[in-house]
């Protein structure tokens, strides 16, 4: 005879109670984030090796980035982490309206970050398109314009590795945000519909963990990409 168990709305049947369910979800999310540490970590490894081997070229490439935009974007993303933490906080206190507010603010700040990224990418990619001279093209490959960085020969090739890493690492980071923002929007919608309570708001917490992780990746990307040899 199957034992009767309390059916609070969100409780899944294989869990004994909401606490066990929430703790399990948190562990699961953390394990996923550990995989993300190793995933991004692979890129950081490639970065470490080539920066070690080609420091001067990397420094030249880094100087070409706008550290001010990177600095601003870092503050924007840290701000979005604050608003996300506030969203989780509001959920824990059962304040429906504030959950929505803070989630929307997080989306706004995330969007701003991506907007700046778009600007940065455009100025490097647009010169590569079309025919004619590709002065200022910074996409690695046949059209890469090393003279824009006053480099030639060996360093002209090495700096392409720097930009490969720049696009690769910030690109995958941005992809994580592009995936995160619609999820935040969905959360905001569900919060607006009253789905979350002080008793159960696990999805908000879980998405919060993801968002903070994306912030942490950027905290490392900023100095490592934008501030090489700036002294």
């Amino acid at each position, binding site marked *: 005879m199957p034992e009767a168990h309390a059916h609070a709305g969100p409780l899944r049947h294989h869990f004994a109670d909401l606490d066990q369910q929430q703790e399990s979800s948190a562990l699961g999310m953390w394990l996923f984030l550990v995989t993300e540490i190793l995933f991004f970590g692979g890129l950081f490894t490639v970065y470490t090796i080539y920066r070690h081997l080609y420091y001067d070229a990397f420094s030249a490439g880094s100087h070409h980035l706008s550290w001010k935009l990177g600095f601003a974007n870092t503050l924007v993303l840290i701000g979005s982490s604050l608003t996300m933490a506030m969203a989780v906080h509001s959920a824990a206190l059962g304040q429906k309206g504030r959950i929505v507010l803070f989630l929307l603010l997080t989306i706004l700040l995330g969007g701003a970050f991506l907007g700046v990224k778009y600007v940065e990418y455009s100025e490097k990619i647009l010169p590569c398109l079309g025919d004619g001279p590709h002065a200022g093209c910074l996409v690695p490959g046949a059209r890469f314009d090393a003279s824009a960085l006053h480099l030639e020969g060996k360093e002209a090739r*090495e700096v392409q590795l720097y930009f490969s890493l720049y696009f690769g690492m910030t690109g995958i980071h941005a992809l994580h945000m592009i995936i995160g923002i619609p999820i935040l929007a969905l959360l905001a919608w569900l919060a607006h519909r009253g789905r979350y309570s002080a008793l159960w708001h696990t999805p908000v917490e879980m998405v919060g963990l993801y968002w903070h992780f994306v912030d942490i990746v950027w905290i490392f990307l900023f100095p490592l990409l934008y501030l090489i040899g700036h002294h």
Partner: protein
Amino acid sequence: MSTAPVPPKVHYLNADYGWRSWLLTTDHKRIALLYLVSVTAMFFLGGAYAVLIRLNLLEPTGSLVSAETYNKLFTAHGVIMVFFFLIPAIPATLGNFLIPLMIGAKDLAFPRINLLSWYIYVVGAVITLQALVNGGLDTGWTFYTPYSTAFANTAVVTAGVGIFVTGFSSILTGLNFIVTIHKMRAPGLTWFRLPLFVWAHYATAVIQILGTPVIAVTVLLVAAERAFHFGFFDPARGGDPILFQHLFWFYSHPAVYIMILPAMGVMSELVTAFSRKKVFGYRFIAMSSLAIAGLSFLVWAHHMFVTGLSVYAAMVFSALSFTVGIPSAIKVFNWTATLYRGSVSWQTPMLYAFGFIGLFTFGGLTGLFLATLGVDVHVTDTYFIVAHFHYIMVGGTIMAYLGGLHFWWPKITGRLYPEWWARVSAVIIFVGFNLTFFPQFIVGYLGMPRRYHAYPPEFQVLNVMSTAGASILGIGYLIPMVYLAWSMRYGKVASANPWPATGLEWQTTSPPPTLNFDKTPAVADEVYDYPKLIESKGAVLA
């Protein structure tokens, strides 16, 4: 034992019907069967490629297929067997089925993610097979750069995407197991009362979580290099092809422990059950699983000794590779000590267990040869390596997998398999296996390189022996397909605990109900308490 067992009226197999009840199930037992069907299909597909390889190697000229085609054959064999059979086989079938049962839970922590992991596996398989079939892949399963990035004109990117996708299946399975084992154990089931099968899968899951993402990003880098010419692994652009190997093997060495640890978990269950004795050195075996998981991440460059690696780094990796053999040896010693003064019986699972002990030990010892820098320089990229890893993967993992499949078959299906057919198959497999792979040690040591479609004529006799062995091995694998399928309909009905064996999975019906237990069990006994079991059950089942 005088009355014939009666199957439970409602159990997980008949609780619901129709394709939707299978394809949309969240029951870990049904998902295990979905995986069983998929990995079996992939096993025979990978095996078909192996048959073609061995047929080609009957003649030294290797002219059954062209050299290019031959490259595609061994690549397909490797990719399919590694990613689609060996890595998921035991965890996704036996692990999925048994872990909730063994810990007294109703299901895994995340049943829907469990189903998702199967779908991801299927999608990854479809993408990869598409690549293998359309144009094929000729880089070897290791797709070393710069060949894979700059020179191969085969479906590298597609296959890479397929592997990338499949990796998430492995990650999600590992994630599920870790959370389940932490959070969903029955009352009284402390860590040191867990069956060693559970410990083994926990350690495996740790490797899946830490290692798989690295190969995911590596595959992405290869794809990016091919598509966007980034240059990470291209010397002409300042890249280093060896960096690829570092990143690749950082996962792929621990991956071989993903393949063997679950098999060792099965072994612990089989050896105790068929010696009717408590396992010797339970804590040592449990801790050795964790040690293997940790150490496995520190040895990868032993695959790279001849690449131009720093000699100093090579020495460190060589020393560490010796140490990783120690926990495995501890397990073998402890299983052997478990047998000592046990009441050993020779049912099929035990035949496979004995096969494992012999073949895994043999293969593992040859691993020590390979950890030795001087020897490795001589035998690397020869058939010695091929024989080494097949002794572990086939002589070890597949034997344990078959042993476990037979041991838990009554629990999974509610039926007994036909014992004599099963024993005959086990012997055929053992004979076929040794005939296939032992000659490869010899021919490898004598210098026959791997991944070549042709070879010097003086190696033909040994190659013919190997091919003959492969045919016997193939037959040995096909017979269980027949009688296991037959048994599902016509096999003798099994009781809840036909062996009998200890463990919570045997405390519920065969097959179990959908929610596993009618009442959540409370655990008060120590694990593998065979003396108590024998006392309560009376006579030992022959």
